[in-house]
């Protein structure tokens, strides 16, 4: 821990600097690869949608004698011939999913299950989803998604810069695509709780980006006049200065989400908590990655295209809008900041 804290100081002064902005091609390629892979698996495999989206019925029987065979037998007894999935959840639960049933079929099946498992009808947990319900919630989720993106973009454009808004939104879309891709690849079930998770990731990823951009804004204030450093370098310093915070924040966010995941998947077996926290868990990791490696480099790229910033880059001594990726960056910012810190340190001891 202490080593990490010391690292914070070095990162702040720019003595240790990871060149996120300069090496952006690496991150871009890495992300492009992930996005392509996501798109491919999404089209090839599709998402494993829960019954909430397709319509259908789900029954969960909780009893120590829970077994797939009895459940199968019950379906036969109740003359339910639709497609079905029978799963053992945890040690004492069995879950049966079928296509949409009529009320009569539903009560027959519940009664049969109660009889065969020797439990009361009331103790069976059930969920019945109408066929048009999925469209409805998908539509609402999409409205929510676009509404949110629009509002946040306006907010960022107003309080920060238009280019920051664009970069932040690109980073968020990046996160969603990759998270969805991971879901398609691994075949995790997508339920409304997963959608809540996705939407929360948007908020979280933007939140993370906002903190980094706030520092970028501070570092680049009046940068064109000072002529000491280029936009990219100042932005990169900002990323490095906030990286300890980003790391701490992500960890602090992952700890509670991880505990929901642990409880949801481990103790409860399946359901809202597991679906929600799994989406959050994956999304938080991509969100932290994107605010550091995608959002800021895109912002720097956009800003470096401006004539004022190109002129600045020339004055500072790098060629054109190419960002210097070698050690001089580090040395420069160190010599830039070092002396200011030196004399005061003894006083503080």
């Amino acid at each position, binding site marked *: 821990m202490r080593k990490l804290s010391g690292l914070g100081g070095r990162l702040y002064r720019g003595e240790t600097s990871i060149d996120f902005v300069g090496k952006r091609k690496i991150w871009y390629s890495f992300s492009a690869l992930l996005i392509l892979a996501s798109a491919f698996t999404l089209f090839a495999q599709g998402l494993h949608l829960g019954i909430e989206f397709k319509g259908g019925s789900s029954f969960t029987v909780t009893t120590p004698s829970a077994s797939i065979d009895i459940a199968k037998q019950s379906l036969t007894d109740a003359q339910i011939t639709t497609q079905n999935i029978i799963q053992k959840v945890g040690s004492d639960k069995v879950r049966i999913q079928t296509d949409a049933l009529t009320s009569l079929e539903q009560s027959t099946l519940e009664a049969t299950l109660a009889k065969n498992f020797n439990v009361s009808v009331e103790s069976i947990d059930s969920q019945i989803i109408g066929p048009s319900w999925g469209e409805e919630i998908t539509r609402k989720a999409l409205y929510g998604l676009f509404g949110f993106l629009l509002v946040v973009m306006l907010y960022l454009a107003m309080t920060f810069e238009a280019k920051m808004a664009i970069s932040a939104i690109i980073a968020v879309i990046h996160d969603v695509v990759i998270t969805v891709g991971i879901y398609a690849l691994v075949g995790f079930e997508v339920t409304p709780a997963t959608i809540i998770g996705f939407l929360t990731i948007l908020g979280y990823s933007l939140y993370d980006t906002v903190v980094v951009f706030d520092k970028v804004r501070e570092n680049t204030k009046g940068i064109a006049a000072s002529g000491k450093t280029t936009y990219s370098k100042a932005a990169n310093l900002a990323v490095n200065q906030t990286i300890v915070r980003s790391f701490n924040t992500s960890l602090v966010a992952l700890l509670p989400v991880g*505990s929901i995941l642990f409880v949801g998947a481990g103790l409860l077996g399946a359901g809202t908590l597991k679906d929600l926290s799994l989406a959050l868990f994956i999304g938080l990791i991509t969100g932290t990655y994107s605010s550091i490696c995608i959002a800021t480099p895109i912002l720097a790229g956009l800003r470096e295209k401006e004539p004022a910033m190109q002129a600045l880059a020339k004055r500072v001594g790098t060629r054109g809008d190419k960002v210097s990726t070698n050690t001089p960056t580090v040395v420069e910012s160190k010599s830039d900041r070092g002396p200011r810190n030196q004399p005061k340190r003894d006083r503080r001891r």
Partner: protein
Amino acid sequence: MSANKVANTQARAVRTISILLLSVLALTGLSFVIGATSFKLGLDLQGGTSVTLQPRIEDGQTGRVTAEAIDQAVEIIRQRVNSLGVAESEVSAQGTGINRQIVIQVPGETGRRIVDLVGQTAELRFRPVLAEGAANATPLGTDPTASVLPPGVTPEINAQYAALDCTLPENRQGGSSGNEAATIVSCDRAGINKYILAPAEVLGRQVTQASALLDPQGASGWYVTLEFDGEGAAKFGAMTTRLTSLPAPQNQAAIVLDGLVYSAPRINEPINTGNAQITGNFTQLESQDLANVLKYGALPLTFDRGEVQQVSPSLGADQLRGGLIAGILGLALVVIYSMLYYRGLGIVSVSSLMVAAVMSLLSFALLGELIDFTLTLAGIAGAIVAIGITADSFIVYFERIRDEIREGKSIKSAVETGWVRARRTIIAADVVSMLAAIMLYIFAVGGVRGFAFTLGLTTIIDLIVVFLFTKPLMTILAKLSFFNNGHPWSGFSAKSIGMVEKNPQKTGEVSNA
């Protein structure tokens, strides 16, 4: 910073914290006074049935779902559900505008019956009244087989009429609009009268317009006008022409929605124009209610069963326990991490988290009492996720203070200047988080809304805690020599913030070893 100014800042900090803590205490007192000592738990945590219905226009009909129609539908369904007599059952419309869902929530195990009950279409019909009586009146005539029965009333119907007790809520359930060609017995909605009604002569769909108006002369007060389409006008004309000549109560036409009589006005004259007025000593509200009933009848909604969820009390208890364990575990992990990483500062972060936790729990209890806020599993998850957001505000602030110290400021002034910069970041980040919560709340249904609500609520609490507790606490602590002198355990030691990279041997002497 002058000594005077520092003293001022200190005094203000103490005052701010005191005010916040006193407010929390006062709110705690308030919650005891108004009896908000426990949380309202959602059905997924206490067990019960929840049905979400999607209203839509019937197939083959044209027209649009209106907001009033949905409100009326909620009324109809509430009537059906309340007849079951389950305490705390709730019927509400969720979502925005005409795109709303109707959510029915019935706690406990009795709710299974409602699933079939709530989904049926409610139809409006105009039926001539054959007989009218008090809610628990005896059969017409002393001898049920006597010939004094009004035309159209068979002895069987008379027996049904005698058996019907409209004072019992279960007999005022509605849910079935009945065969329109049959003679039926029916209660009025309030359970005051009961009726024998002839086959329907005019259907709700034949109504084109209905509105509540105030007579400008004030003679008849509030009244309701209604218009029929061509077919409706002809049938209504025929019915009214026939009824006006009959003795009471057979000169009345009942307006029956969902099997219940909403009004049974006397027909004064034949109405052949297709425009009718219903007068009576209506209040504004009564006339508007009746107009809404008629409008709803013009375009009855069908309800698609969107989602039916039946949670047994034992699963509910499991989920509640799971949510609580996850919350405590998450909080504990964050506390351990902040203590390890921020040392002395960890105390600030932990106490702030505790204040935030107390405020959140208090708000859940108070809002449960005041606006019927129910805590669901998704809501608990939202609150747990918010632990991270709240803790992040401290991290942003602490890192800012450390940055200021690295710039060479004293701890006392770093706490103040760092705050000015951290404040802006925290506000920006919380606004984004708040926007997410608001958009989720507006567009989502069911569980998502619970999640969005707690996320938004805890974001506000985060702002309150950071501004009114964490920052003043830092100001106070910065005066203590433990922090001010950068004690190795304070989280501000030169070593832990990396001030000493170039002269590591120097720090060796720092501690009092």
